C-alpha cells in the first residue's frame, strides 16, 4: 500500500505540490485528475523518486522511501509509464522491454505474454529502434515496458495519450484485469473523464498543487469534477 503523506515539492522557488496526501491500495485504481500544470506529474515523480520532495513522506508497504533513488523504488515493486514516453530511442523495441529485467530474479527475466497480447504491434517490431516508432506505438511500448517489471504499484501518467481508440479500450480492459488480479495498486493520471470514471476505485482532483477533492468511485460527482477541470 502506498501512502503519500503531506508531501511538498519545489522546483527551485516554485511550489508545485502543497501538502498532498493520497493512498493507493492493491487491487484498486486510484485516479488523479486536474487541469494542466496543477501538479499531477509532479506527484508521480515524487512517488517514483525522480524528484526530491521537500516535505512530508511517502510510505510504501509500511516503510518510508526517504531519499531512496528511483531504481531502489523500482526494485521494491514500483513501475511507471511516464508522461512523454521516455523510450530509449536507440534501443530496439525488444531491448527497451529488456531494460525492465534489472534486479528481477532470473526466472522472471522474460517478457510476459500479456504485453504482446495487449500490444500486438510490438511483437512485429521487436527489432525496430524505439525512437523510430510512431507516437502511439511508443506509448504502447512504454506501458509494455512497465509491465515487464511486474510491479506492485503501477504509476500511469496519461497512458492513453496519442493512442488509437481501439487500443484505449484494450488498455482500459488491461487495467481492469490487473486490478482484478488484486495484487497491484494502480495510480492513474488521466484527463479523459470517462476513461477515468470507468476505471477508478478512488479518485482525487488537484488544483494548483493541492488535492481539492477526493473520494471513492461512488462519490465521483461528474459535474463537480468537470467544473474543476474546466479552464
Amino acid at each position: 500500500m502506498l501512502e503519500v503523506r503531506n508531501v511538498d515539492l519545489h522546483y527551485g522557488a516554485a511550489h508545485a505540490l502543497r501538502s498532498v496526501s493520497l493512498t493507493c491500495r492493491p487491487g484498486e485504481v486510484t485516479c488523479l485528475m486536474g487541469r494542466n500544470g496543477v501538479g499531477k506529474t509532479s506527484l508521480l515523480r515524487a512517488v517514483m523518486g525522480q524528484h526530491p520532495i521537500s516535505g512530508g513522506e511517502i510510505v510504501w508497504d509500511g516503510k518510508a522511501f526517504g531519499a531512496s533513488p528511483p531504481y531502489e523504488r523500482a526494485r521494491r515493486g514500483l513501475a511507471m509509464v511516464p508522461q512523454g514516453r521516455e523510450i530509449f530511442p536507440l534501443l530496439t523495441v525488444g531491448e527497451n522491454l529488456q531494460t525492465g529485467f534489472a534486479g528481477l530474479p532470473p526466472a522472471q527475466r522474460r517478457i510476459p505474454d500479456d504485453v504482446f497480447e495487449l500490444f500486438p504491434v510490438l511483437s512485429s517490431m521487436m527489432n525496430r529502434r524505439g525512437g523510430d516508432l510512431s507516437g502511439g506505438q511508443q506509448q504502447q511500448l512504454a506501458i509494455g515496458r512497465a509491465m515487464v517489471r511486474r510491479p506492485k504499484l503501477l504509476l500511469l501518467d496519461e497512458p492513453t495519450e496519442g493512442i488509437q481508440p481501439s487500443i484505449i479500450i484494450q488498455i482500459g480492459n488491461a487495467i481492469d484485469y490487473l486490478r482484478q488480479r488484486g495484487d497491484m495498486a494502480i495510480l492513474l493520471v488521466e484527463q479523459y473523464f470517462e476513461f477515468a470514471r470507468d476505471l477508478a476505485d478512488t479518485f482525487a482532483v488537484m488544483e494548483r498543487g493541492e488535492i481539492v477533492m477526493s473520494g471513492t468511485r461512488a462519490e465521483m460527482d461528474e459535474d463537480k469534477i468537470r467544473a474543476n477541470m474546466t479552464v
Partner: protein
Amino acid sequence: MTTISPILLTRFALGAIAILLVGSLVVIYLNLAFDPGDPWHVPTYVVSLLGKYLAFALLALSIDLVWGFGGVLTLGHGAFFALGGYAMGMYLMRQIGDRGVYGNPLLPDFMVFLNWDGLPWYWHGFDMFWFAALMVVLVPGLLAFVFGWLAFRSRVTGVYLSIITQAMTFALMLAFFRNEMGFGGNNGLTDFKDILGFSIQARETRAALFFATALALCLGLLLAIWLVRSRFGQALVAVRDAEARARFIGYRVEHYKLIIWTVSAAMAGVAGALYVPQVGIINPGEFAPANSIEAVIWVAVGGRGTLVGSIVGAVLVNFGKTYFTGAFPELWLFVLGALFVVVTVLLPRGIMGPFFGLIDRRRQRKLIAEQQESAARASAEREAGVDPDDTAMARGGAAE
C-alpha cells in the same frame, strides 16, 4: 543551460566596461607618472601582462558569443586568434626593414638563411599598417566564413563540429610548422622593433598597446551586447536550443550561425593582433588544439553565456597561471587542474553564476508572486461567472 536575462547581461557588461576603462587609465597613469622604484609605480612588465590578459579576454569573449549564444562549442578558435596574430606579426616583421641580422631590406631573417630568393606573394602589402589591420579581421573572418558556410550548410553540429574545428586548427598548426609555408616555421615571427613608427619596447608604446586592448575589449563587449540583446540574439539562442524547431518556423539556422561564427572569428583575430606585439612572438604553437581548449575553459570557468564571465575567466585563469608558474613551478598544474574540477562541480554556471543566480532567484520569486496573483484573479473571475476565455478565444480566432 539556463539563459540569463539580456537586461542582466547588459548591466553586468556595462559595469565591466566602466571598470575596464577606468582601471586601464589608472594603470597607465601609475605606470607613466611614477618612476620605477616609486611604491606607486606599476612596472611596465605588469602593464604588458595585463595587456596580454585582456587580449585573451577578448578571445574568450568571442568564444562566449559562439558557444554561449550560438551553441557552437569551438575547439579551434585559437586558429583565428593566431591568424590575426600572424597578420600583425607580418606587419611587425616588415617594420624591421634592414635592421635584421643579415641587413636584408626585404626579406625577414628566417627567409634569408634558408635561401629564399624573394618575398612570397602573400607577404606583400603587410608593410602597410592599414592593410595588415584589414587582414587581421579579414583572414580569420574569411576562413571562418568558408569553414562555417560548409559546415553549417551541411548541418554539422555538436561534437562533430567541435572536432572538425579542432582538426582545422591542428591542420593549420602543422602547416605553419612547415618552413616552406614562409612564416618562419616553428620559430615563428619574433624580434619586432617598431609599431607605427614607435619602438615596441618603449614604455609609452606598451601603455598605448595596453589601452588599445582594453578599448578593443570594451568595443567587443558593446558589440556583444548589441548582438545578444537584439531579436537576432533571441533567435540565435532559439537556434542554439532547438535548431530543428527554429527551422520549422522559418529561421535559416545556417545564416544565424554563420554570422555569429564569422563575427566571433574576426573578434578573435583582433585579439590575436593585439596579443602579438605585447608578448613579442607569434609561432605555430598558438594553433595548438590545447590552446583552443584552454580558451574554451576560460569561458567555462567564468560562466558560459554571461559575456562578462568569459572575461573574468580569462583574466583569472591567466593570472593564476602567471602567479602559480612562478610561485609553485612544480605544483601549479595541480592547482590549476583542481581549480577546473572544483569550478565545474561546485559552480555549474561558472564563477559569475552565483552573482547572476542571486539576482535571478529574486526575479523568480517576484515572478511566482505575480503568477499566483494573476491566476487567483482568473479563478475569481471564473467564479464570478465571467468566462475570460470566451473573449480571448474570439480575439485569437479573429486576429490574423
